[in-house]
Every structure is written in structure tokens, then in C-alpha cells.
């Protein structure tokens, strides 16, 4: 083979190998970091995995937010079809309130308690994370008026 061509072939082979490794790494990382979303009703029905992180979203049930003298907070999330107790330690986001939709990331234990390591209240004008709106819609519990704003 022409030495120039040989060199070029080497370069191409090297590059293909590099891209191959990159793709393998990528798919691996991708698979490990997928976070599924479950609505409280699905969690109650046992569809969510125990001990593996996922995201949950729903409305904070009015009157369930319990805060002691520390940063530990307990509240209940519902989508109308089921409710799940959630525990979180830290500062809640600005938009967290009773009766509002939130999304939390964390793990579920055997007793059905969801320990969140992150609580998100979406920063937009309708206070309604889309996943939550969807879950509520499915359960037929969409509060009046919210439906129209969600679509903005």
C-alpha cells in the first residue's frame, strides 16, 4: 500500500475506534442516568422501583407540611389517585407551597416513604410542572382554570 494511504488508513481507523469507545461510554452513561417519572397513583400501585432513584410529582396536600425546629420537612404529595409521604431536609424552593404542584427526586423505601434529595417547583407563571399537570389530568383532578394556563 502507498505509505500515504497507509497513514491515512491508520488515522481513520484510530478515529473510528475513538468514536466507538465514545459511543459505548455514552450509551452506558445514558442508561445509568435515566430518571423515570412516576405519579403518586403509580407509586401507590407499586409501579415505582424501591431503592432506585426516580422523580415523583404531584400537588402538596394542604395541611400536611410539617416542619419542626430543624430543616427537616415532611409533606404529602397527591395526584388525586393516591398519595405518598415525602421527607426532605434542606431549604425548599421559593415556589413550594401547600396546594402547589412540585417535582421531587429521590428514592422510595419499603414503608412507602419517599426521601427526596431535591425538590423542584418549576419556575414559571402557572406554578404547575407539566408532569404534574399531566398526572392530574389523567386522574381527572385538574383544578379549575389551571388547564388553560398550562398551555401558554
Amino acid at each position, binding site marked *: 500500500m502507498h505509505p*500515504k494511504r497507509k*497513514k491515512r488508513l*491508520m*488515522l481513520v481507523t484510530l*478515529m473510528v475506534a*475513538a*468514536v466507538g*469507545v*465514545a459511543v459505548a*461510554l*455514552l450509551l452506558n*452513561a*445514558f442508561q*445509568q*442516568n*435515566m*430518571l*423515570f*417519572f412516576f405519579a403518586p397513583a403509580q407509586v401507590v400501585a407499586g409501579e415505582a422501583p424501591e431503592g432506585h432513584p426516580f*422523580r415523583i410529582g404531584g400537588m402538596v396536600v394542604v395541611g400536611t407540611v410539617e*416542619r419542626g*425546629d*430543624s*430543616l427537616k420537612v415532611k409533606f404529602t404529595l397527591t395526584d388525586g389517585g393516591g398519595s405518598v409521604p415525602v421527607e426532605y*431536609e*434542606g*431549604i*425548599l424552593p*421559593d*415556589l413550594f407551597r401547600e396546594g402547589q404542584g412540585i417535582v421531587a427526586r429521590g428514592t422510595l423505601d419499603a414503608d412507602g416513604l419517599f426521601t427526596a434529595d431535591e425538590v423542584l417547583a*418549576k*419556575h*414559571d*407563571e402557572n406554578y404547575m410542572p*407539566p*408532569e404534574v*399537570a*399531566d398526572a392530574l389530568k389523567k386522574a381527572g383532578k385538574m383544578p379549575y382554570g389551571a388547564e388553560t394556563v*398550562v*398551555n*401558554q
Partner: protein
Amino acid sequence: MIPEIGHFALVLALCVSFVQAVVPLWGSLTGRASWVALAAPSAQLQAFLVAISYAVLTWSFIISDFSVLYVANTSNTELPMIYRISGVWGAHEGSLLLWALILSGWTLAVSLFSRGIPSVMLARVLSVMAMISVGFLLFVLITSNPFERLFPVPVEGQDLNPLLQDFGLAVHPPMLYMGYVGFAVAFSFAIAALIGGRLDMAWARWMRPWTALAWAFLTVGIALGSWWAYYELGWGGWWFWDPVENASLMPWLVGTALMHSLAASEKRGVFKAWTVLLAVFAFSLSLLGTFLVRSGVLTSVHAFASDPERGVFILGFLVATIGCSLLLYAWRAPRLMRSGSFSAVSRESGLLLNNVLLVVFCATVLLGTLYPLALDALNMGKLSVGPPYFNTVLIPLGVPLAIAMGIGSLVRWKQDKLSRIAKGLALAAVASLLAGAVVPWLMGGYFWGAVLGSALGTWVILTTCQALIERFKNKGLSVASAKQVPSSFYGMCLAHVGIGVLIIGITLTSHYSVEKDLRMAPGEVFDVSGYRFEFVGVTEEEGPNYDAFVGLVKVTSGGKQVAELYSEKRRYRVQTMPMTEAAIDPGLFRDLYVALGEEIGSDGAWAVRIYYKPFVRWIWLGCLMMGAGGILTVLDRRYKLASRRELRAQAVQPQQVTA
């Protein structure tokens, strides 16, 4: 009446841009000089009309004309003046109008500052830009008219989202759009070249300053967004791998690849077809980004489905843009590919590697951003891809990229020997390893990531300096020789040093930040990294359109006062939305960051967030250096001189108006 003038101007602009899209292009293909000559005046007229329309909308905001639906939705009489002006792009309709305005601004600039470019080429570029403009103006007029009236007229508007009432976010979108839309210029040059079948080094030279300028804007725009998220969202993060951020990162990655392949195309005439492809992708991703963010597709696929008109238009426009460009490419590019040769050790190889890595990374981000959307749209479950995914992929791609960056800027074009630069490289490598050993020790803790990051950052900076020294080796260091070096070279050096600074900033911030959420009663103290934070207490205050709790935290170090940090918890009156305003004591080597949570218990205790963030400013400093590097490249003499020379050549030769 006045809003109708704005609407009417927009309709006229659409008509003008339609003419601009068709006539000059057709003239250039059929050899009608007078049709070609129509390009520049129509571009200017279009820019004028869009500017009128935009000014009218701004006026409606200033006088609080709530009979305009968009103003009623996003403004309020209590809103301070500066946010009324920035409120114009505070929501969907206005931000699309801003997009159109910036596009017509870029078109105007191309028509004014491209005298050296043959008129046929210029006509085609302006025609392609007008095609984009037609698409955008149609989109605005059909689906998102900002001038829609509202009856009955409300007494008060619904106010701008409090999150957007901030200087950082007032300037972030225009900057970002300048970058996004700037890639439309590179795109148009690429398409015009494909149409004309002329893909030479002169073409690359015309295209390069525009690309560099757009890239500089995009870089600064992204940095502004990151800075804003850091101080405004109240949890001190500067990058979240949020889909919205990814949407702006993707065009940046491809745009960076484009800058580099353009350099090779300009200097050596290689990678030309690839450059065209990158220009197409950079702009397509910009479009994707704009539409994804602004149409609400990203926040919810269902919002997308619920407004089929916008969604269909978006998809149609994207498909048309990408489809037509790729078709044109497939048809024309094989004729144009005539690549020069280069050896494995050459700057071309380095740039190729840079391109491959950047594009792979972009594909990674695209996958992580779009896959959840696709799955959701197909009703196959909801999932999101966490930051660890992006971080895991970033490292194996970023490390070879940083290493290659150092070597690539030192080797010569076409062919070189590693032995020539081996000594310098070895020195830089030793110094970098040393930095990798010492910096973590100074910061007080060893992490392999910190060692790697500080070594790589140092490596990039040192090798860049070495390239600079190399330039002066034979000339001696003097003002005269410094002037001889083209400013695009200084631009490259500055941008590369910026990358080094960025790497160090990211590394040290991520590994050595201390973040604490605490319950603090008045008088309580907390010690972190040699600083003592004392919570004094909370008072109530009143702002122009909000009420606030203001918490005071005094910071001392070794008994001396460092800062008094007033963080706020605001409640905006109209939208009754609480907002945290963090208090930050910035510094080149560390930020002290305090944010107020909520009141706990009855003894005046509050939840307080205390952060110590070393080297966080380096992240934005690095980005600013990159942006400045891009500007330096634009200012390069050769882009001006070359155009003058060409102008003369053009004056001598009679103009050819053929395809």
C-alpha cells in the same frame, strides 16, 4: 392606532423580505444585474420596517398600553422602566419579534460591511437570509402576533415574571439571540456558496469574521445565562444541564467546531465541504434551540401538542431548513470537494480531532435533551436524563480535547515534526503535572478530578503562551513585531487561555465548594474555610413592586469584617410570587454566598443557605476571554485589507453575473 402601525410595518417587512428572497437570487442565476442590485436596498428597507415594528411594541410597553394583549400579559404600571423595555422580550411573542429584529440587523450589517464581496455572492447571501426572515416573520404574524388587541382593556397588567426582573436576564436573551441569529449569516454564506458552486479560500475568509462575531456573542450570552442562574435562582449552581441550557450549548459546540474548520478552510483550503455542513448544523441547532425554548416544547411536550398551529409551523420550518440545505449539499458538495493533503502531525489533524470531539459531544447533548422528549411524545413514559450523564461523557471527551488544543496550536500547517516542539511540550507537561499536584494541596484536599482539571487547565494556558512565544522567536519582542502578528492570532490565544481559565474555574468550584443549609437564630455563627458567618436578623422592607424580608449576615475573617451580606426574600405584589435574592460577596478567588430560606420557629430563626465558592468567577472570566478572543479575530486586518484588495480587483475586471 399605534400598535396597528407596528403590525402593518411587520406585514410590509414580510413583503419586502419575500422580494429580497426571490429577486436577487433569481437575478444572480439568470444574469440580471439590476435584480442583483436590489439585494442591499431591500435588506435595508426590511431592517427599517422591522425596527419600526419593534419600536412600536416597546412604546406600547413604555406607556403601558394594556389594550395590547401581550403588554397586558407581561407588564404592569408599577414595573420599573428598564424592565418595561426588557419586558418586550419577556415572553414568547416579543422574543420572536426580537429574533426577527436581530436577524434583520445582521442582514443590514452584511449589506453594509461586505463591499469586498462580489455582488452576485452578496445577493445570494442576502437572499438566503431573507428566506429565513420570511419564515420567521410568517411565524410571528400567523401564530404569535404581539400586537393582538384585548377588549375590554384591563386597568392593570399581569406584570413581568419576577424572575425576569433582573439585569442579567434583561441582557441575556439579546446576547444569546445575537449569537443564534449570527449563525444565520454563516449559514447563508454556506448556502450561497453551494448555490454558486464556489467554495474557495476567499469564501472562507468572507465567512469567518461573521462566524467569529456570532460565536463571541453566543459565548457571552451563555455565560450571562449561567451567571444569572447563579445569583438569581438562589441555589448557587451555575450550570444544571437543563434542556434550556443544553439548547444553547449545542449550537455553541458546533459553532466552535465551525470556527476551527473555517480556520483550516481559510488558510489551507481543506475541510470545505465539512465547513458547509457545520454551518448548516450550527444554524439548525440555533433554530432548534430558539423554538424548543420559546414554544414551550421543552417544558412540556403536551403544551406543544395543545397548540398544534405553532408546533406544526416549527416542525415545518425546521424540516424545510435542514432538508433543503442537506439536499442542496448532497447535490453540490461532491463537485466541490477537493481537499488538500496533510500529514498526521499537522495543525489540520489537530483541528480535525477538535471537530470530531466537539461534534460527538454535541450529539451526546442532543441525545440527552431530545430522547426524553421523543419518548414522552410517543407516550412511552416520562424520564429525564440527570447531570451525571453529561458529566460522565464530558470528561473522556474534554481531556483529549484539552491535550490536543495545546499541541494543535503549536504544530504547523500541512506537515510538522513532533520533535521540533517536543522540548517545549515536555516542559509544559512537567509544569502542568506540578500544578496538578500543588493546586489541590493548596486548596486542601486531593480528588483525582481536581488533579486532572488543574493540570489540564495549566497545560492549555502554558502551551498557548508557548505558541505566542514561538511567534516572536525570530522577530524579537518589540512593538513593531507585536503589531505584525495578526490580531486573529491574539484572538486565538486569548480564547484558548480563556478555556484554560474556564477549566480551572469549573474544577475548583466543583470540588472545593462548601454548601450548607442551616437553621440560624439571630446571633448564631457558622465557620467555613476561615470565614465566620454571623446571622444578625431579619427586617422587613418595601421595594417598588414588591415587599421583602431582608436578612443580614456579617462575615468576618480573623476578627476583621469582610462583608455585610443582605439577602432578600421578596414577594412581588402582582404575581404574589416569592423570590430569593441571594447576597454575594464576589472575589477573584472565592465568592461568599448567602441566601434566605424561610422562617423557622418563633425565635426569629431562619433557614439560611451559606456557600463558599472558590474560583467560581473564573468560569465567567474564561467565557469573557473567549468572547474577547472572538472579537479580536473579527478585528483582524486581513479581513479589511483583503476586502479592499478585492474591491480593486473587482473594479478592474468587469463584473460577471453568471452562475
